[in-house]
Structures are given as C-alpha cells and as structure tokens.
C-alpha cells in the first residue's frame, strides 16, 4: 500500500529534523470517522522546525523531498502515486490538534490522525461552505464526543460559528 511509504517518508523527515510532530487531517482523516467525502489528496499537519517565509512555507520539505524524486507539483507532492499536502501550523488549534492526535492502525501501519473533535473544531475555525457541510456530517453521524467538542469551542472562541452550524 502506498500509504506505508508516505508514512515512512514522513517519519524519516521527523528523524532528520525537517518536521516535528505530524498528523493526518482533512478529508482522509475524516473518512476514518464518518462516510468518506470526495478529496484528491492526503493532508498532513506538520510542525516545521525551521523558520519559514509566508511566501515559501514549504521550502524545508521541498528541499528534503526533491532529491528523493518527489518534486512539488503545485502545492502537493506525488509520493508513490498519492498526492500529499503538508500543512504547517497556522495557529494554536492546529498545533494542539496535532499534539493530541489519535494513533490509528491502517492496514498494519500506525498513523497519527487528528481526532474527530479537533477535526470539527478546525472546520469551524476555517468555516468555508464545505467545512460546514463536513462538520454537520460528524454531528449527524454521532461521530464526535460533544462534551469534548464543547471544551474546544469554548477554549478557541468558536461559539458563534458553532451556533450557526447548529441552525443548518
């Protein structure tokens, strides 16, 4: 399975000091907890250990992966036929979500995956139309612990967006 190789490469990046913590997020992570929705790539939240410019945030990863034969294509890397995107932390919520990630076994491979509560909180934070629809799916399919989600909603000031989601 190509996912094995992707995880192996990410762990090598960690060992070599390119990234710190990491976790699978986005639609692929969501597919572990709710019915899958269309996506084209695997999104990994990563802690970049080097200072980066907002103009070229993926530079340390590009410099690491290019010599291995995985050049960037747009904003993604094609690794063993899979499109992989690395998303550096944009704020405290993404950082904490990555630190608190679940460990999930996928076909014998242990993968750090964002928990459903943090996924929904991140969807509330980004709040695009597709995020609202996805967050709604988690609620409709009873895929989140509401007590835990409420803690995040309060701590990260997401009450207003949460109320609007509940009106959908």
């Amino acid at each position, binding site marked *: *399975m*190509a*996912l094995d190789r992707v995880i192996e490469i990410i762990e090598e990046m960690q060992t070599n000091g390119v990234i710190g913590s990491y976790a699978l997020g986005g639609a*692929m992570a969501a*597919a*572990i907890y709710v019915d*899958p929705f269309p*996506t*084209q790539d*695997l999104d990994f939240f990563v*802690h*970049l250990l080097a*200072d*980066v410019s*907002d*103009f070229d*945030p*993926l530079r340390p990863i590009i410099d690491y992966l290019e010599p291995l034969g995985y050049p960037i*294509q*747009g*904003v*993604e890397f094609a690794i063993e*036929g*899979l*499109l992989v*995107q690395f*998303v*550096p*932390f*944009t*704020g*405290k919520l993404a*950082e*904490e979500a990555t*630190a*608190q*990630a*679940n*460990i*999930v*076994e*996928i*076909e014998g491979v*242990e993968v750090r*995956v964002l*928990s459903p*509560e*943090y996924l929904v909180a991140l969807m509330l934070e980004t709040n695009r139309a597709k995020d609202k629809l996805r967050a709604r799916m988690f609620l409709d399919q009873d895929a989140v612990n509401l007590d*835990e*989600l409420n*803690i*995040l909603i309060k*701590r990260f000031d997401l009450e207003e967006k949460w109320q609007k989601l509940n009106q959908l």
Partner: protein
Amino acid sequence: MAKAEPIVDRKYTNLSRLFDAKEQAKKDRAHLSPTEKYRMVQRLNEINKSLKSAKIIKRQGVKRG
C-alpha cells in the same frame, strides 16, 4: 519603530497563498485526461477502503486547559 512580533507567533505560518495555490491546482486537475482522473480516483478509493477498516489504538482526548 515597528513593534517586534511576539516570538510565540513565529511558529505559525500564514497559509493563505498556499490555499489559493491549492484551489488553483484543483482547477488545473480538472483538465487531466479521463484516464488520469480514473487512476487517481482508483487510488483514493483503495485508501478509503483501508480507512474504513482502520482501528483506533490510542485516543488522547482533548486538552482541557
């Protein structure tokens, strides 16, 4: 004199450019040949199948404070 940026904020990246580029990449992929699109969907379907049989082996819960 410009106010110094707090050190704590320096580890966070403004990804608006990255996300714009991602949307553009999606638009570009709309022009892939049907065969290329089919292969991409096949690979993603394989992963989705694996994800359905995934097992959570360690759950950390949320940070409370």
